[in-house]
């Protein structure tokens, strides 16, 4: 649905986005994850045909940015970084203006539909200036949807919301995916990216990594299991170290963190060996890395690029490099 090739934006000599190559598939939620100043907003603006790329190209729904901008604008709905609502006008008026500008055929019906969906109907005639931050954000979402765009660009849609409102907005975004819309979600909230996104592109001016959240995790850390015992003795430690398939062992209090190449096959052997030397096993789990760790590692290692792209993304990532 969205493809970019070597997309680059330079502001007065300052590179904001460099050589971004990606393909966002129809119907997926694609996360654009990056720290402040990573170029997320700049990317969204290029994809919404608001600013023109310095070089490279972007194609959205078959339309080329810079050449068929009007068609792109009709196809795309956008939630900008700031909600940007007319505060003296009511919720309904705000939506009506946009419905008309997008050439929606049944303005009243569409406006009503989204006011209901986002639970703003009861406040429809109140000036937006009296709304809470969360309500404004919901209204901004409604505004982005009022013309039923197939592509949605969301620039940090939950930033500054309380946990409850954040959940409401996230659930709503998850529902949108079910309707077959293609969604680009910018965020620096890792938890959000992991919950909502099918794939994540980590961006720091240049693309750093592109994969599913799970694959990103595996790629960076290999696989480790954590064995929690009643007590760790020297004998137990010694026994584990002598197993030839164990890559690394670390003791953390009563836990052993063991790096394995193939836990599915090796775990039973490991457990048997542990039991033989009298270990009382309480738990055995695979270590989970939060996306946060992955993210920080990626950002720190930026430039070093230890991350290999997965097979499906290799073509894209290699040209992005």
């Amino acid at each position: 649905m969205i493809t970019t090739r070597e997309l680059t934006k330079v502001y007065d000599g300052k590179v904001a986005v460099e050589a971004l190559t990606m393909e966002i598939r129809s119907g997926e939620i694609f996360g654009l994850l990056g720290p402040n100043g990573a170029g997320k907003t700049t990317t969204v603006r290029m994809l919404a045909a608001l600013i023109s790329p310095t070089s490279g190209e972007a194609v959205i729904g078959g339309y080329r940015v810079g050449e068929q901008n009007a068609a792109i604008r009709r196809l795309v709905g956008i939630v900008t970084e700031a909600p940007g609502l007319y505060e003296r006008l009511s919720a309904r008026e705000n939506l009506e203006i946009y419905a008309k500008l997008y050439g929606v055929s049944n303005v009243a019906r569409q406006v009503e539909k989204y006011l209901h969906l986002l639970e703003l109907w009861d406040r429809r005639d109140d000036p937006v200036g009296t709304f809470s931050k969360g309500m404004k954000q919901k209204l901004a979402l409604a505004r982005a949807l009022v013309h039923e765009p197939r592509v949605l660009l969301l620039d940090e849609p939950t930033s500054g919301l309380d946990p409850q409102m954040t959940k409401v907005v996230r659930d709503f975004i998850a529902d949108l995916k079910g309707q077959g819309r293609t969604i680009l979600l910018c965020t620096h909230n890792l938890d959000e990216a992991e919950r909502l996104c099918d794939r994540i592109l980590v961006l720091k001016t240049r693309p750093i990594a592109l994969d599913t959240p799970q694959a990103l995790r595996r790629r960076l850390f290999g696989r480790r299991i954590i064995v929690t015992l009643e007590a760790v003795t020297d004998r137990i430690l010694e026994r584990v170290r002598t197993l030839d398939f164990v890559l690394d062992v670390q003791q953390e209090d009563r836990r052993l963190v063991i790096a394995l190449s193939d836990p599915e096959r090796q775990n039973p052997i490991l457990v048997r060996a542990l039991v033989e030397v009298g270990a009382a096993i309480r738990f055995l789990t695979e270590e989970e890395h939060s996306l946060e760790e992955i993210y920080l590692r990626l950002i720190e290692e930026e430039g070093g690029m230890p991350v290999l792209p997965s097979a499906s993304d290799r073509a894209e990532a290699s040209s992005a490099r």
Partner: protein
Amino acid sequence: MSAVLVILQKEWADLRRHRLLMLSMMAPAVVFLLLPFALVILVPLLDPSGWNDRNVQRMAELLGRAEPDLRRMDPLLVFHIYIFRQFTLMFLLIPILGALSIATYSIVGEKQNRTLEPLLATPIRTTELLWGKSLAAALPATLLTWITFGFYVLLMRVLSPAEVLAHVVNPVGLSLIFLIGPLVAILSLGLGVIVSSRAKDPRTAQQIGVLLILPIMALFIMQMRGFFLLRARWVWLGAAVLLALDVIILKIGARLFQRETILTRWT
């Protein structure tokens, strides 16, 4: 519906609820409407013999030379005509101030509230947006001027002798209000658009208004001091010059009014 109309509607819905802005537009109109009547009524009352001083006589003489029928008139009526004509000129400040405040508010205001980005993401053309905003500023400013002038004429009919009205609502007066008025409104909003692209605050943008107010004030004072009298021909020449200026200013405004420029340079 055309995008220009949608913008126009939106601007007016917003304007209607902006009390302070409405008030700041109305205030000069009311002052310029009432002040001349206060002058022609109060000055002879407070100073029964002294009002007809050397300055007024010199003005009456000047007026008489240009329009001989004024020479046969009661000096008090000539004084009325003189004051009312002066204030017809002052009426031009209404479209200038009005168009400027609406234009700067509607652009700098959108900039401050960051409403321009989602707006520019819609399929609207930037020229349509500029047209909508320009009309939203020029129409009410011009209309306010005309309505105020309507009240002016009405009050003159009620409060002044009949000969006075005919000498105020003459080609010069009508050209000022109906020709120069809209033209200065356009000039003012055009300058408003240009300064708004740089200014962070509507008030700083509005300081450009001084540029436009000064020439009007200069005319007002020069005519008051008896340097010259505005003739219809000069007013029409002025209109032609203003028209040319309007075109130039609007072209510059339109050039600044581009999606990318608005989003990335108008900080």
